[in-house]
């Protein structure tokens, strides 16, 4: 038996099973994905830098989860919002119906209110969906939160979403907002776009995960 053949043979037990001595962490260095290794798979991320908007393409995951980290606007008193596309981003105008409620408290102890806001919900509207309330642009002010979008590729069902954010209001309040609704279409959603209601996204990172 040649040397190479001997090395190969030694890698297996007499029953032909791979032996532990012949596979280690380094053996997996070129592995970039393992089915079942995790149920929440990182898909993509984008970091804003004076960005007019941030767009993501959607695929076939049954659920997408977006994390918003330190979204900071260039303009004071604006809303972070999203819309959806069924035509690969050519148009963001999917019809939506949603609910919107929030709790808020001022740093000066004003407020302490839990309320539904019927000006920020949507009823069969193609407008952008707001995800927070009057975000401030002070250097340390920002918004963070999550958005779950369920089965956007379905061609049978409407598409539900659930979002939860906390933001620093421009008048120094803490706003905790819960938004949920559905995109009232049976067409597959192909793209999602995030933007501020006015001005650019000065900074912040959005991470997109797919949930198996």
């Amino acid at each position: 038996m040649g040397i190479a053949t001997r090395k190969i043979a030694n890698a297996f037990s007499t029953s032909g099973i791979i032996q532990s001595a012949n596979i280690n962490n380094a053996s997996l260095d070129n592995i970039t994905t393992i089915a079942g290794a995790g149920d929440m798979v990182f898909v993509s991320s984008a970091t804003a830098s004076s960005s007019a908007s941030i767009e993501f393409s959607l695929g076939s995951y049954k659920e997408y989860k977006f994390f918003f980290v330190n979204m900071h606007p260039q303009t004071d008193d604006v809303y972070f919002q999203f819309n959806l596309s069924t035509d690969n981003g050519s148009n963001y105008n999917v019809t939506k119906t949603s609910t919107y409620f929030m709790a808020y408290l001022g740093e000066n102890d004003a407020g302490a209110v839990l309320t539904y806001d019927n000006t920020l919900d949507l009823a069969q509207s193609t407008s952008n969906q707001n995800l927070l309330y009057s975000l401030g642009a002070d250097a340390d002010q920002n918004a963070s939160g999550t958005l779950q979008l369920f089965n956007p590729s379905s061609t049978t069902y409407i598409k539900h979403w659930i979002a939860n954010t906390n933001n620093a209001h421009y008048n120094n309040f803490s706003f905790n907002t819960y938004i949920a609704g559905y995109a009232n279409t049976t067409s597959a959603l192909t793209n999602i776009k995030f933007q501020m209601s006015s001005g650019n996204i000065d900074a912040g990172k959005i991470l997109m995960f797919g949930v198996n």
Partner: protein
Amino acid sequence: MGSLTRKFANNFTTGGVYKPAAITNNSLANITDIPAAAKGKLTLISSQTASASASISFTSGIDSTYPIYRFEFINMHPATDNADLTFQGSTNGGSSYGITTTSTYFETRHSENDSVAQLAYNTGFDLAQSTSYIRGSGSITNQNDSGLSGVLTIFNPSSTIFVKHFICEINKMFNFSGSFESTHSLSAGYLNTTSSINAFDFKMDTGNIDDGTIYMYGIGA
């Protein structure tokens, strides 16, 4: 073909792919980690289980590695009846806890006997520029099968630019004048500092944490 070669060959399909029989758990005994690119993105950093503990502190593993940290509370059981689960952050590795915080708190309640069904803001549990411990929940009954479970998410605690937002969602059992109820507690706000937060402390507002486990995960790319 020799017998050894035959056994070796038998562990491949006709297409040359390894059959399950070729790889056993023992084959992977020396695998202790997989490449980062292949890992799941909810990474367990550490966990702690209470046992009549005055508090549970996480003083390591909170840094710039992850943009999002997630604490999961599993069956937190108070030693004292009607204790509240509270938490605070630290900018000095846990030497002290008391970051100025503004936060909201509201909850929904429903009693087992159907007598209470309520959604309300609780002004007693919010914080306005306070260094007090933040309430994750209201009162928890300490009967044997009671307790709470839930999730606390902290965004970018290592930032030196922004205030640090948190969102906490817990469900618990409460004993209201002899009637048990399910309470869904929702608190959120920001730790109003631009210093990095590198430790968190969890405790009941009175008495020990009798039992329960807190898992700390990192979420990132």
